[in-house]
């Protein structure tokens, strides 16, 4: 039954077209909330697509829609030759070894009561891997993300934020997925930790060829890790293109505004950027 996807198709790993997500209204008079207003985005195998935007722009919702955690009201999300929209829970479970996730908050994304080894073996065991096999894999996974092998016998709370995020990355890698949705995975981390975790993401990608949808509010983070960048604003993608172009020479006024708003760690450059931003704002 298994058939390889033809060369032309394998150019695209995931293809989202006109995705709409609408949350029903909570009150009598408030209208339903349209979190995504027809978003289209494609991801190639082994590629990082950065998704940048401010809070409420819908960037997290798009990630959750791909993961099957947000209700898609219309549009299509194709993964390979499979349609993800409308899959029931049982069918969705079969995708666990294709698409995985790393969440923002390393404190709430790991069950505080489970040993790290069980956090990591949970997806394997759920997919029917034998326990002894899973235990071996856990050790290997810990090594891959730079944690000692005995980390498995400890609880998540014994680790720092950066280490917890490494555990979360290891969990995502456990099933050898081809796409990982990373939802602000470094936003809760300290500056130096953030840089190291980003390097880990890149290293893993170089080694395994996994693709990332990398959601972040921070343009500099997205610039560092992405091959292509999409900018979201009010539930729509306003700009999508190569990283250098979008983050260096943006076309859309909103992207420009975003770029100019981030302060640079250099007093003189920041003064110039500030003047430029204030000039833009007056236009």
């Amino acid at each position, binding site marked *: 039954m298994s058939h390889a996807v033809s060369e032309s198709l394998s150019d695209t790993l995931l293809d989202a077209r006109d995705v709409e997500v609408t949350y029903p209204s909570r009150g009598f008079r408030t209208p339903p909330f349209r979190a995504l207003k027809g978003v289209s985005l494609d991801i190639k195998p082994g590629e990082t697509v950065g998704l940048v935007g401010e809070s409420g722009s819908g960037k997290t919702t798009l990630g959750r829609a791909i993961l099957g955690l947000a209700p898609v009201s219309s549009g299509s999300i194709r993964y*390979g030759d499979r349609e993800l929209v409308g899959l029931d829970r049982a069918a969705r479970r079969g995708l666990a070894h294709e698409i995985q996730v790393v969440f923002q908050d390393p404190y709430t994304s790991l069950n505080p009561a489970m040993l790290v080894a069980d956090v990591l073996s949970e997806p394997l065991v759920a997919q029917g891997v034998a326990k002894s096999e899973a235990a071996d894999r856990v050790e290997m996974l810990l090594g891959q993300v730079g944690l000692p092998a005995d980390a498995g016998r400890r*609880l998540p709370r014994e680790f720092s934020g950066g280490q917890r995020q490494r555990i979360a990355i290891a969990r995502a890698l456990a099933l050898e997925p081809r796409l990982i949705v990373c939802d602000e995975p470094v936003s809760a981390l300290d500056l130096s930790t953030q840089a190291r975790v980003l390097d880990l993401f890149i290293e893993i990608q170089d080694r395994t060829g996994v693709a990332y949808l990398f959601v972040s509010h921070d343009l500099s983070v997205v610039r560092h890790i992405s091959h292509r960048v999409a900018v979201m604003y009010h539930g729509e993608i306003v700009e999508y293109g190569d990283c250098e172009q979008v983050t260096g020479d943006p076309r859309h006024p909103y992207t420009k505004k975003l770029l100019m708003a981030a302060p640079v760690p250099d007093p003189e450059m920041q003064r110039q950027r500030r003047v430029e931003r204030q000039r833009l704002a007056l236009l």
Partner: protein
Amino acid sequence: MSIPAPEHNPQLLAAAIAPREGVLKKILRDPFGSGGIVVIVVIVLLSVFAKLLAPFDPAYVDIQATNMPPFTDGHPLGTDASGRDVLSRLLVAGQLTLIGAAVTVVISLVIGVVTGLVAGYFAGPFDHAASWTADMLMVLPSKIVLVALFAVIGPNTVVTMAVLGVMVSPGIFRLVRSLVIGVKNELYVDAARVAGLSSRAIIGRHILYTVRAPIIIQAAFIAGIAVLIQAGLEFIGLGDPSTPTWGGMLQEAFLAMYKAPWLILWPGLMIGLFVSAFILLGNAVRDAMEDSAKVKVPKKDRLRTSTMAVTVQPGRRAANTPAIASGSALLVVDSLVVGYPLPDGELKRVVDGVSLSVNEGEVLGLVGESGSGKTQTAFAILGLLPEEAQIAGGALFFRGEDLIGMPEKARVKLRGKSIAYIPQEPMSNLDPAFRVGFQLVEPMRAQLGLSKSEATKQALELLARVGIPDPKRTFDAYPHQISGGMAQRVLIAGAISCNPDLLIADEPTTALDVTVQAEILDILRGLQKERNMAMVLVTHNFGVVADLCDTVAVMQLGRIVEQNSTAALFAAPVHPYTKMLLDSTLEGTPARAPLRRAESPVRVITTEDDRPREEALNVSRSV
């Protein structure tokens, strides 16, 4: 009990048990917890073996020996009005009480946990119906229903207590439902779903674990309530007259109150002991759970900064007061040490000898990563350290005045008027119960002695100054009606409302979107210039420092490792930690190059994975 265990995975079951052992140990170490357990076990054993232990048949009537006082021959606790042995009756009475309490607890748990889990996890119409029924049951006064049902049921303790179980099950239902809704939205549950776990596995593994401790606590309280209500019913004559019961004995004692008042003591004592054992056990479980959740999470702040806790090391101040001599500095922090007492009596120093000074109109950036002590330093300057924090050394001077030795009253006078504060989280720093305007007017009236109308006028001007488009509307709004960016503007307006000389801003833009951050920084810069305010800006963002600060102090592990003018520090950082931090910033680094085709490793996508899973993993591992 009814709670289904996650049997289908013994490995994970073991994981769930492991941390609980710690909790159990904590409960046993808590004198109230172990005491409660001992009392319950003793009463259960006494009741179970009551027939063997009792010196008399509890129903044996000795008409010659009625109302005998305690310690009479052969009757350690005396006899009742019919001449029956009190001790024997007391022991046997425990049986029915235990059965009754167990029935109530089991019934309420079965109903409450099952419906609560289903309603919480799957929501929908079942949730509506169940919630509504729970509301209805909660409205009914349970005692009166049981009294009414006596007309139907008669003196049948088991049925009565089962009905009570139904009546109290809404408490469990609501608890479980709200816990489940909370856990359901946790990211780790989402992660489990993405990892391909079924709903059943998620409930068994992740959700039941979280909800079971609160359920145990609630069950202990319900057991206590059941004992009380059962005794109450027996006391008013609705008990089972064929067997002795604690409530029934109280009723008889009540009737013999004038002749033998001591008779009310024993059953009351038993009930009191038994119920308090359950309450103490419940409290101990709760405390143990809270303790284990608290590990490594910093304690939340409390209102009172205990002045008792301030132990200033004498002599320290006199020895080293360079900035005061110069006289120009507005704020001088000299060798400040802030610590938190550890259980072993040691002091954990979070600020460890910090010295800095801020001149009039100067903006100082206090930079560091989490745990560097920068926020604690800021709170020490404000005098708003958490209650358990101690200033264990050093000195603080504002305009040459000693802040630490200053009486609290004088310190309050400085707040807002001389030293003001802008917090990090905009939403949690506005009182949700009061309108924005009130929260601005109140301090101005207290600190500046303004009239209400004058304060209102100034507040509206301030709101306009911080860039709020419709000041009147924001003034009249409640905090939940405005956005985070607006809330931060309101907090800035509040901080400058009493014209402070020094503004302490603790990560004032961290919680905001970058475009809003830029606007807030503009406002702060503008206000600082026009009022010539000094500022201490606590931040982790070197971009913010570059934008706003004249001087910078870099903190690491409670100490300042480098301090310089902003231009000099960025141009030539000296300390390796500063260099490392600056190297870590991504701003200005080159973008990642586009993905080249050759770079993309080709892996075959198989839509139907018909290889055995292990083989698939072996293959993919070699990639």
